[in-house]
């Protein structure tokens, strides 16, 4: 079994937390994990990309080869379009629908949504709205983890345990809000 995930978004969206949650859940299930992210300049409102690789065997490259990703998990719809060449033939795209328009030439949102919906396996999610309804506008990233849960080769309980572990030092309220966002995402 191997499962490669492209995580993408814009600096400051909490993509690294998502990567940590999925990676910890996979480790807890005894799987091998490699993760690659880039810090620094690109985090200043630029595009942010992390590669997450899960396998029951040895993983070589820290980055995902083209045409190999089982999932593109995007925190922003335009960013999802950027990484399609990494997606495997049977792979899926799960993307937040809400744009971050911090560039002058941001394309028409309708056209972006249409391009994503035209893919064989894609899911567009109002992650911000759902997170707000779950009680924490900042937990949109956990809505996406929830939506990805049924695709991932991991038990929901492992993901829940990883969310608790990641947020526990921030207090019970933060854990509960993130868990609620995760559950809301699972229901989609």
């Amino acid at each position, binding site marked *: 079994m191997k499962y490669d995930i492209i995580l993408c978004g*814009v*600096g400051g969206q909490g993509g690294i937390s998502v990567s940590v949650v999925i*990676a*910890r859940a996979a*480790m807890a299930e005894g799987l*091998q*994990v*490699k*993760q*690659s*992210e*880039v*810090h*620094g*300049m*690109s*985090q*200043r*409102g*630029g*595009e942010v990309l992390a590669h997450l690789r899960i396998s029951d065997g040895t*993983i*070589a*490259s*820290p*980055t*995902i*080869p*083209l*045409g*190999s*990703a089982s999932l593109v998990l995007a925190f922003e719809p*335009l*960013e999802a*379009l*950027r990484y*399609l*060449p*990494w*997606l*495997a*033939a049977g*792979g899926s795209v799960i993307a937040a629908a809400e744009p971050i328009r*911090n*560039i*002058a*030439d*941001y*394309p028409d949102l309708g*056209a*972006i949504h249409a*391009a994503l919906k035209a*893919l064989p396996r894609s899911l567009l999610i109002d992650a911000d709205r759902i997170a707000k309804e779950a009680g924490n506008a900042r937990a949109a990233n956990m809505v996406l983890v929830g939506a990805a849960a049924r695709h991932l080769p991991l038990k929901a309980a492992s993901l829940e345990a990883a969310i608790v572990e990641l947020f526990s030092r921030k207090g019970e309220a933060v854990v509960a809000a993130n868990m609620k966002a995760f559950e809301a995402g699972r229901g989609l």
Partner: protein
Amino acid sequence: MDNQMLMGDEAIALGALHAGLSAAFAYPGTPSTEIMETLQEIASREGGFVAQWCSNEKTAFESALGASYAGRRTMVSMKHVGLNVAADPFINSALLKINGGLVVVVADDPGMHSSQDEQDSRWYADFARVPCLEPADSQEAYDMAREAFELSEKNACPVMLRIVTRLAHGRSAVVFGPRLPQNPVSKAGDRWGWNLMPSVARRLWKDLLAKYERIRGENDATSAIEPGSADLAVVTTGLALQYYRENEGDLATKPSHLHISRYPIPHGALRELASRSKRILVLEEGYPFVERYLRGILSTPIPISGKESGEVPATGELTPDNIRPALGLPARQGLAPSSLVPPGRPPQLCAGCPHGDSFSFLTEALEGHQVFAVNADIGCYTLGALPPYNAVETVVEMGASFGMARGASEAGLRPAVGVIGDSTFYHSGIPNLVDAVSHGTNVKFLILDNATTGMTGAQPTIMPSERLRAIALAVGVGSDHVHVVRAHRTEHEANVALLKRELDHMGVSVIIAFRECIEALKKARKA
């Protein structure tokens, strides 16, 4: 705490700590920053060792030298261009009879994710005749950090640990070894092993060359060739091993393979590999270092491919895909790119960043001047070169702003404004300020003081903000021409007027535009 998922940087910090580290020194620089951050986080909880940010990489290195002289295990970490700053102590330290283990971690940034060049630190190691270890995952990073201290003390020389961005910021599982006790303080016994006056240095240089060849022999002895087809031999170094392994299964016949992770380059192993092969492909992250070396050590030349020959891309990072043509493999097919081509999303100053307000008043104050120079520096404010500011003209290396503005002015290009951040000012700005004062240059220095090292994740600046004004006065800038202003849009008109007045002053002016970094404030509130 065993079997952790660690970044390469974290693994190195812990490897050093478990090897009995007593003192670590560094200046922040992506992708090396998290090494010191990890050590400081542990030091704040446990104590028992020193983990300090320094003014620059040179001072950090010199502190490490002192710690080694005292007999303790010490580490200095930096990004690749930091080694340019520390090159003097680095190259000269190779001649010393190192006492406590001295490990130099240098993080190269192929692909220039957050840097101004792609320089390959293995050339520095070889230039200085310093042994170098190059890990291929977090476990090796941990193990090699430990090994580097052993190697350093056994051979009485500094040891470089060379990593790259994908290793520094890649996470994989690490199993820890036992934690060793620290060395006691025990001053270097041989005083003439630490004095590089020429008569002594001549002897030490001979010793070093002999030492270097001895270590090369050891690297030969531990090199293992994986046998395979005689048609193609593949040499990998560092992370290139992983990209090769990713593709190995697609090859019809398995090439013979030699992985190099310890330098000096094992000549014997490479000659042996060449003697069994018709052709050699070299895969290495960085410059064609092994490839070029290889061309010089074979008595019977065979075709050698790599970056220099053009089969492997000479710029940017290796990927599991861009080495496939060199291996004779077809491109992998993913989904077709979207017909809607996503525009790039360049990094930008954060909303509410004080630097934005500083660039606004700088630009307006310069309006009406036909010619001028705005020489800036390395940091978040580099982004002032991009729209909507378009204010920054030059960005070269740490400290170049002040020096270039001074030189431009002396050459007749005026007004000349040097723009530097507070942390970069402490790193390399002060000597240029001294030059300007000593020659009475007509130059304007704008210090963007956000009280942090922003781009690398908001490490505290080495001195408090009040000290900047005192330093300008202390080196002799006239007190009428040192100003502290608030970098905020509400002060815009006043700041424009002040800067315009100073542009008319014929000597050195220092304007400190202060406002705290938005990100650092957020981080402080979260903590």
